[in-house]
């Protein structure tokens, strides 16, 4: 099952890139002109995201560098240790929705120190792999179309992060614990 999915994953992009233009050409679409026409929008879209991403990255960066994030992580870790959850993975719950690179670095560090096949290494891998960076996704997707009022989207994203975090720990404790 895993082999099959991973085979599909490696083939998906090359097949799409070969098949889409071929199919279009057969239907008499001027493929190269179409490509250039669509690609033109890409630059403007990426540029439109800059103000949103800069604003968000500055806030996150300041929050981390000031020591506020470390303090908060040190504060919540003991709260959950009582449940049999290794305290080392708890900061990930806070880090994951805020910064993708930061949480990946933290996960890699846990894997390096405790080993990839340790309970901590497996839980950290599962947490890192099971959700995306909510704040980044929100900033990029809404930034690209100029949405300023995201309504309840952030709440929903953070809620699902929390549920995913708890589920990752619970499933790992059940399977590997």
């Amino acid at each position, binding site marked *: 099952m895993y082999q099959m999915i991973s085979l599909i994953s490696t083939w998906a992009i090359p097949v799409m890139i070969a098949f*889409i233009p071929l199919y279009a050409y057969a239907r008499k679409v001027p493929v190269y002109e179409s490509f250039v026409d669509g690609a033109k929008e890409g630059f403007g879209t990426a540029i439109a995201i800059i103000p949103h991403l800069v604003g968000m990255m500055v806030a996150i960066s300041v929050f981390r560098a000031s020591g506020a994030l470390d303090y908060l992580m040190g504060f919540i870790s003991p709260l959950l240790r009582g449940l049999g959850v290794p305290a080392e993975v708890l900061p990930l719950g806070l880090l994951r929705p805020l910064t993708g690179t930061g949480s990946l670095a933290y996960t890699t560090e846990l894997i390096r120190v405790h080993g990839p096949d340790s309970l901590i290494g497996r839980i950290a891998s599962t947490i890192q792999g099971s959700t995306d960076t909510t704040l980044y996704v929100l900033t990029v997707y809404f930034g690209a179309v100029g949405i300023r*009022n995201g309504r309840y989207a952030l709440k929903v994203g953070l809620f699902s992060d929390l549920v995913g975090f708890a589920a990752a720990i619970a499933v790992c404790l059940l399977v590997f614990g």
Partner: protein
Amino acid sequence: MINGIWLGMILIGFVFAAVNGRMDAFTGAVFDGAKNGVTVSFGLISVLVFWLGIMKIAEDAGLLRTIARVLGPVVRFLFPDVPKGHPAIGYILSNMSANLLGLGNAATPMGIKAMQELQTLNPDKDTATPAMCTLLALNTASITLIPATLIAIRLNYGSADPAGIVGTTLAATLVATLAAVFADRLCRRLHLLRRPPGPPAARRSRTGGGTASPPPVAHSQAKG
């Protein structure tokens, strides 16, 4: 909420920097963060330009419409307010399948394109529609069949069973996605209950007044 979180992170950062005597780190972090934001955006240029080009070919060939017709019913359940056969559905489906296969750098351009298509259906361009919130919820939870990056890292550190986390990740991501869809539905309901058409209309009339159409005209003039 986003305003509160943004201001909160900066102010809390300021207070902690003051208490910890890290004011120089604070200043450094501001410019590092800004640089990072630009770097990430620039990194998006190449994937956005390329994928939006490929997707344009797919759109011109009618492929997106075909996909939307075949798989439309799945999307209709999640996005009831997107009209049948609208191009947004094709992009939403492409985004969801790219996420599923763990193709992050293809998923983002398609998701952004889906957002742009949903924006054409949006009466109030500054405020997210329920469909946009649903798309965002699906992407923050991001169902992934194969967490490729993590398998690579685990392999790198000598794991005997690098893919051993595929099952647990799938279980956790499914639960997170279900929670996201459920919470999104709940919020959508509550939002409709709490705010019947009144306040948004009032807001629109306050900002736009009787001149509902001139701003877009001025905008397109400024652009062209």
